[in-house]
């Protein structure tokens, strides 16, 4: 039973004991134990990534009323393996005039920037990479590296369409980072810390943050979907529009890294939504049995990923100018208004006990949502009148 209560610490202590008994210095043993843990975590993330290929194809099939892969293995479960084998044995074609070093670094950095995110995600109360006290900003920083990899890919391909797609994608991604960072500020205010472990810990007892700030959760979801470059915000990557944008000149496993990186990124954002707004690893008996907490976390992250896929396969693509107008003229003001309201409500009510706090925050969110909808209705009413009013000099 002791093992189940705190598995990682027990394994770590055993490892340190073994390594120091082999005569290694304490600090070096620490580093080796860390390295083993890191390799394990990253390998687990990559295996999860491979499973996500199957999940994505099955879910898109069911949304579109067809069956999806069902030949290889039961329910098509082994489908990712032929996919990977196919990608590995494909020829790697480097286009003419491409900048070889940058061309090769881009897919590695793209997948790498997603893997970096797993260092701070708390899978359970005692299973996590490290407790960084600036974990939320670390998320944004890893996203910045991903944005960089897209520009590198687009430029190094020596292809007009790749460059154009990369530019538009990066313009969209950096624009939507503002509402996303403001949405990240909301759990910071409520929990009082930037550390993901603290934010998860303060959601104990069923006080999940999306109850306190549903509008914040919705805002985070929308800007996260735009950050991922997934539909409906994937004009720059849509296969029918700009022929895959910055992916055009990538073949074989390099394309595989981009694709796998995108899927893992979507799942990781589902994980962040779970950690920040849906209680992370909390659930029945999760505090005593961390592995159960990890299971709850993965389940919640899978649910978040499913919601992201649901949006992708339901809503049509949005044009780039509509996307940017939506961000700068709607999401950013709403995000900052939400931040102001959350800060005011939190400061006024933080000492008042659970029920006043919860009702105050929840209803302030509802109020802001209602006011936003009213303003939108008034604006569109004006626009509709301008369009529908008959022209006095029509036809005679």
């Amino acid at each position, binding site marked *: 039973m002791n093992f189940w209560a705190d598995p990682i610490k027990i394994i770590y202590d055993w490892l340190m004991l073994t390594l120091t008994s082999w005569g290694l210095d304490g*600090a070096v043993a*620490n*580093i080796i134990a*860390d390295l083993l843990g*890191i*390799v394990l975590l*990253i*390998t687990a993330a*990559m295996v999860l990534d491979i499973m996500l290929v199957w999940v994505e194809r099955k879910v898109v099939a069911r949304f579109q009323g067809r069956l999806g892969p069902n030949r290889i293995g039961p329910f098509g479960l082994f489908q990712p393996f032929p996919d990977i084998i196919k*990608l*590995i*044995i*494909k*020829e*790697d*074609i*480097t*286009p*003419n005039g491409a900048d070889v070093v940058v061309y*090769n670094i881009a897919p*590695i*950095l793209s*997948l*790498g920037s997603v*893997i970096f995110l797993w*260092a701070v995600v708390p899978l359970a109360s005692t299973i996590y*990479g*490290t407790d*960084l006290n600036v974990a*939320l*900003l670390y998320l944004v920083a890893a996203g910045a590296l991903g944005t960089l990899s897209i520009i590198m890919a687009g430029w190094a391909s*020596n*292809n*007009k369409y790749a*460059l154009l797609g990369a*530019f538009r994608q990066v*313009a969209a991604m*950096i624009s939507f*980072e*503002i509402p996303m*960072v403001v949405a990240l*500020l909301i759990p*910071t*205010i409520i929990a*009082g810390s930037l550390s993901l472990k603290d934010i998860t810990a303060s959601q104990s007892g069923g006080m999940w943050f999306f109850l306190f700030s549903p509008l914040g959760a919705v805002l985070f979801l929308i800007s996260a979907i735009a950050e991922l470059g997934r539909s409906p915000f994937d004009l720059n990557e849509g296969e029918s529009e700009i*022929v895959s944008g910055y992916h055009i000149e990538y073949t074989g*496993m*390099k394309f595989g*890294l981009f694709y796998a990186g995108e899927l893992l990124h979507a799942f990781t954002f589902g994980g962040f939504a779970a950690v920040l707004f849906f209680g992370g690893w909390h659930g029945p008996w999760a505090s005593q049995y961390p592995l159960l907490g990890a299971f709850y976390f993965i389940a919640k992250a899978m649910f978040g990923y499913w919601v992201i896929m649901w949006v992708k396969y339901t809503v049509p693509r949005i044009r*780039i100018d509509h996307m*940017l*107008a939506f961000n*700068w003229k709607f999401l*950013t*003001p709403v995000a900052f208004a939400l*931040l102001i309201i959350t*800060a*005011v409500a939190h*400061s006024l009510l*933080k000492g008042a006990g659970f029920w006043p706090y919860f009702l105050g925050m929840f209803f302030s969110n509802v109020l802001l949502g209602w006011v936003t909808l009213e303003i939108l209705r008034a604006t569109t009413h004006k626009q509709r009148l301008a369009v529908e009013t008959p022209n006095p000099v029509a036809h005679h």
Partner: protein
Amino acid sequence: MQNPWIYIGLFLLVGIIIPIIPIAFSALIAPRKPNPIKQSTYECGIETVGESWVQFKAQYYIFALVFLIFDVETVFLFPWALALNALPFFAVLEGILFILILMAGLSFAWRKGMLEWV
């Protein structure tokens, strides 16, 4: 308690090395038969027309500028958000003033048509 950044540093190293493994593996076993037609850049199935670096619109740069201003603003807001728990109510008013000044800037840019993708 060791510096958590050591762990992050190791994570970055391993996280860069692990994606290299499939690429290296693929470089070993994939065929390699370059010919000029395969390596020409893709342009909807026809020959490329014109230089590959066309003149881009200034609008990209303008959006990057506006993003930079708001990015720095949100970075300032992070310590403020943490301090809300430790300070009385006037800290909220200071933060609201900060946000409102920049919202004024956003509405100015909006009115001047800088947020249009023309």
